């Protein structure tokens, strides 16, 4: 279980606090989508929950243990991260990259046990990356690379998987597939999957629960249906030109509403 306990995230001056006093609970096996406009604080929140950035106040607890206070090695065994950035890794084969997901569990040599190998194999299969397992990571297309990075996170067998706008480089079928496989992964393993995305439609269709950042420091949490019905989606995304239509479940140009 993931629990945000009066959590505040952000930076020092001049940007300051981005989100303050968050109180949320997520049960195991949930597929959660984090939505909000650019600059609403999605990445800041996810980086804090990954332990990559210190919280400004409060705590984020994973199975009742403070994420910020975990030893780096412990955290790496329990939280896996996939980011937007496209890493270039000269000379690493796909198999090497996915195997790195097992690194928190290996000895100083990084030698993989049979169990580690089996997990890498399963992860490659699950992410549909098996067919290019022996190719060089740098030779892959953006979509293929993203699958490999997801396979690496799956191989890490985390309790919490954090993915920051990973669908940005994928085409529509690719996005649907990736989000569906992450949801299936959460269901099957009981891991919590936190995914930030700009794909409002898809997220509202697939998520068990949605964290909606309104861009003014507020966070609304709920199932997609309740958030739409209560008008939260509209408040977070509407501009003068575009409005979210609760009845249609999509955006319309303002003039047509």
């Amino acid at each position: 279980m993931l629990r945000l306990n009066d959590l505040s995230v952000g930076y020092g001056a001049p940007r300051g606090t981005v989100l303050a006093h968050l109180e949320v609970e997520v049960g195991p096996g949930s597929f959660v989508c984090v939505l909000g406009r650019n600059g609403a604080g999605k990445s800041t929140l996810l980086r804090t929950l990954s332990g990559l950035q210190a919280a400004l106040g409060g705590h984020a607890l994973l199975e009742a243990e403070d994420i910020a206070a975990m030893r780096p090695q412990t955290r790496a065994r329990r939280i896996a991260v996939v980011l937007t950035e496209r890493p270039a890794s000269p000379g690493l084969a796909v198999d090497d990259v996915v195997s790195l997901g097992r690194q928190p569990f290996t000895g100083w040599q990084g030698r993989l046990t049979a169990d580690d190998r089996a997990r890498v194999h399963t992860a490659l299969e699950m992410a549909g990356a098996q067919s290019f397992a022996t190719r060089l990571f740098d030779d892959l297309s953006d979509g293929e690379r993203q699958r490999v990075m997801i396979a690496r996170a799956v191989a890490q067998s985390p309790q919490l998987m954090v993915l920051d706008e990973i669908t940005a480089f994928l085409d529509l079928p690719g996005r649907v597939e990736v989000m569906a496989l992450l949801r299936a992964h959460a269901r099957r393993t009981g891991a919590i999957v936190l995914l930030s995305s700009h794909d409002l439609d898809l997220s509202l269709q697939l998520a068990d629960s949605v964290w909606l950042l309104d861009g003014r420091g507020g966070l609304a949490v709920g199932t997609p249906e309740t958030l739409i019905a209560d008008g939260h989606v509209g408040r977070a995304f509407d501009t003068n030109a575009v409005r979210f239509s609760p009845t249609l479940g999509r955006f319309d140009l303002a003039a047509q509403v």
Partner: protein
Amino acid sequence: MSPAARSSVGTIGLALAVGAAALFALGWGMIAVPPGEVVAGLFGSGDPGNVQIVRELRLPRVVTAIVAGAALGIGGVLMQALFRNPMADAWSLGLTAGGQLGVALLVTAAAFSGPAAIDFLRNFEGVSITLGAMVGIGIFALAMAALARRVGTVTLLVVGLMLGFTVQGIVSVVIHFANRVGGRVFSGWNDGNFASVTSADLPMLIAPVIAGILLALHNAKPLTALLLGETYAKSLGTDVTRLRRLTLAAVVLLVAPITAYCGPVTFVGLIVPHFARAIAGTARILPLLPLAALGGALLALAADLVVHAPWEQHFLHLNAVLALVGAPVVIALLIFSPTMRGQR
């Protein structure tokens, strides 16, 4: 073959090749000593003349070439992983130049501070020039690491090479003034040379290199994670700041004694890691370390053999030979290597 099998086979093959090259190097020269006599000479038996040639004249040079090649090869692997830059190496990024500058300034400072300082330097020559090189390399390494965050791969390479030229200019001026005391330290120092090391120097040459190799082995696993970039390395439990410091320390330990005793040895650290990766079929760091060490030793031995072949007259310097092999490899890497794509 799997990468693991390729690494093992490659390591064994290279080890045999290094052994054979070393035996050959001990026997070859103006006075040829047959292989049987070389082995006997190593153990102190056989013809006394041959024993002297093998043990006292050729062995220090051969050992130095092996140690230097191994240290520079491993140093290259560490530098390329740390800078995430296939062109990084202690020489190409100007660290070697920093080491030279450190030694040159140390000797000059001693020269100007009087006879007592000179005597001290003479008595503790090995320790002091190695320390001088370490300080110089350490400072240049920190500066280049800071610069690497702002500029691209090739820019960094050009800056490093320019630093090398600049320092060479400064050193030549400094040497002019320090020549009275410099003595052996500066002999043939701009060219790289394995022959000026005596058997008394060997412990001071080898000890820091062993420490550097142990540190490299210790850092191999987190350095592999760093190949994915800083954030991913952190998310895999790596303390990136500590890793950077330890890796730079390993590079200093590996490269400083070589620079202090042999001068700037070019190209070995730059090209050997590429061969090691090609043999291993992976960029994972741990299997690369023995391959790069043995590959570096083999290259250094081979280049030294060409220099010390029984020519009519000495006309080749170590760095000239290394450049003949190394420069085309670097040019090919810059033009054809997929890892350099989009980094120009």
